[in-house]
């Protein structure tokens, strides 16, 4: 256990005071309820958070959400906003899986309509959506097509007939970051991405069919198109091997760049460069390109889901409409109110979700009154949540919320105590169909390996960051 002094500010906020002896330029803030602190201090997350507070140009505080756990360099569940353009950008503050994110798709079905077809739907989804590692998707890009995907993101998928135009306004940033420049994505990264569009990968990535079990905010639910008993589909995946390679390439580049800018850090994985340096710009433009790839990927997976749905239900299946798509590993240039002034900042979110509140100009008109939909997946077999960004997020956390349940147990430990086949049967007994690439993968992702998502969500709800709108429970889980 690491001994770091944590001061309680209120029921949901703790602070590590700024300590220049530790190189901290700002304090650290931990959003968590008291009974979650014991788990948080067990790993190195707070030490990593303290290191983040030493990054040049960091503003206000280095923050973590209640789903925090140890990462490498930055803790997972972390937010760091930097001066723009003079502060640093750190690839480790975004993570290897650039624009790993979640989208929620609405169906016109209620649970009773789905029930007789659950097994058939799970089979069709598993057949339609490539999963696992090593297997490519049905789309093989050439170099020119790759450039367009990197530049235009989800819009490319729509233009090619793999999506619907209405989807684009329901994706964070319209599914495309305009500063993307394919030129800065390496040949290694492209080779890893040529055949991976429309694939979910493995690990904690999934496609899940859920039922809306409980509504907490009727008005927001109506605005989001959610109703009790409704069938929805949740997708969790990112930029696949292409994004992973972009991160690898630029973390390596930053290692040597730091000396040039006289930056010394306690952890190599925090490697960074000034945003307005050539290295900083190259990385940001490559990161934007990888983010666009991820949005394109999730759009094509949505097309695959629509195909599978149509095969099972035919014309009577109705339309599948996108509620929203959020990124939880990304850096964005945003305006925030700090020290009494509206300022442009570069906000790093690593395992944290944008959660803009009501009135934000970035949101589609239908979400202006409610705030942005925030999608929080639980672990396999447990609840997921739809939240709405609240005003508190803009005041407290640079418009950010948690991203999921957060791990509390290593994969190795989970595999030791959980038997994959047994867990699969237990979930089946609860009415949840699991299709996965391996039993080891099921064991690694067992609910016991994750924190309590209900507590994580309750914290951000009560702290005024993002309020609960609906709770979802899975009936089909597709994993790699």
């Amino acid at each position: 256990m690491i001994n770091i002094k944590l001061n309680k500010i209120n029921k949901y906020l703790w602070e590590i005071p700024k300590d220049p002896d530790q190189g901290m330029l700002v304090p650290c803030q931990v959003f968590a309820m008291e009974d979650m602190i014991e788990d948080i201090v067990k790993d190195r997350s707070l030490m990593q958070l303290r290191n983040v507070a030493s990054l040049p140009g960091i503003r206000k505080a280095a923050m973590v959400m209640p789903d925090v756990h140890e990462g490498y360099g930055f803790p997972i569940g972390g937010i760091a906003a930097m001066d723009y353009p003079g502060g640093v950008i750190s690839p480790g503050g975004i993570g290897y899986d650039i624009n790993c994110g979640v989208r929620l798709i609405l169906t016109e079905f209620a649970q009773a309509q789905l029930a007789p077809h659950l097994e058939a739907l799970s089979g069709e989804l598993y057949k339609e959506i490539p999963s696992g590692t090593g297997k490519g998707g049905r789309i093989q890009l050439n170099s020119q097509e790759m450039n367009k995907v990197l530049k235009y993101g989800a819009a490319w998928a729509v233009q090619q007939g793999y999506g619907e135009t209405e989807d684009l306004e329901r994706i964070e940033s319209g599914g495309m970051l305009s500063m993307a420049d394919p030129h800065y994505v390496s040949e290694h990264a492209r080779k890893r991405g040529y055949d991976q569009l429309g694939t979910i990968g493995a690990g904690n990535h999934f496609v899940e069919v859920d039922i809306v079990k409980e509504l907490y905010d009727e008005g927001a639910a109506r605005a989001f198109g959610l109703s009790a008993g409704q069938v929805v589909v949740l997708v969790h995946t990112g930029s696949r091997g292409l994004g992973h390679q972009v991160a690898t390439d630029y973390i390596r580049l930053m290692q040597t760049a730091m000396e040039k800018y006289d930056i010394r850090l306690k952890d190599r994985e925090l490697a960074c460069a000034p945003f307005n340096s050539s290295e900083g710009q190259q990385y940001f433009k490559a990161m934007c390109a990888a983010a666009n790839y991820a949005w394109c990927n999730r759009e094509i997976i949505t097309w695959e889901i629509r195909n599978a749905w149509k095969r099972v239900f035919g014309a009577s299946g109705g339309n599948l409409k996108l509620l929203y798509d959020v990124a939880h590993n990304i850096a964005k240039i945003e305006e925030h109110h700090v020290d009494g002034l509206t300022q442009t900042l570069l906000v790093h979110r690593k395992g944290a979700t944008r959660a803009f509140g009501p009135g934000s100009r970035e949101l589609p008109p239908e979400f202006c009154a409610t705030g942005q939909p925030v999608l929080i997946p639980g672990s396999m077999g447990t609840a997921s949540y739809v939240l709405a960004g609240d005003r508190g997020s803009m005041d407290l956390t640079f418009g950010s919320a948690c991203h999921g349940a957060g791990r509390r147990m290593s994969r190795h430990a989970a595999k030791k105590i959980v038997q994959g086949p047994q867990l699969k049967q237990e979930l089946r007994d609860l009415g949840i169909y699991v299709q996965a690439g391996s039993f080891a993968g099921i064991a690694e992702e067992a609910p016991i390996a994750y924190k309590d998502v209900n507590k994580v969500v309750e914290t951000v709800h009560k702290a005024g960051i993002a309020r609960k709108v609906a709770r979802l429970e899975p009936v089909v889980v597709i994993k790699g």
Partner: protein
Amino acid sequence: MKSIQFPAHVADVMILVEADTPGELFSAALEGMNYILTGGHKQKVNRASDVYVEVTSGDRTSLLIDFLSEVLTLSYVNKAVYNDLHILKIDDKCIRARIMGSETNRFAEEIKGVSYHMANVKSNASGKLTSYVLFDI
């Protein structure tokens, strides 16, 4: 002689490698990475084409991580697991090697990246070279 251990890490997979020589250390780390990629299962498939790898880095710790990253990329691009390492040249800043292995159509685990976090090639009290390597899963 070399050894590989798998200390616990909450979110990812970590290895601790120990060896008598730099070459053995790199070989042990490669073996550890491949164990994660294959889930420890040996596959009887076609032999993959040999690949020559040359990596240059600022120091020996970065070199270890950058070498593993390069082989990981080649594994995914070529859909192969490179079990055999024949080092042609190695010093603190450069490695040139031939890697050999087998084709595969599926990996047991998806390694997103080889992290520099906690990596530090150094000699331990027994005079052996050692380092942690953390793999983002």
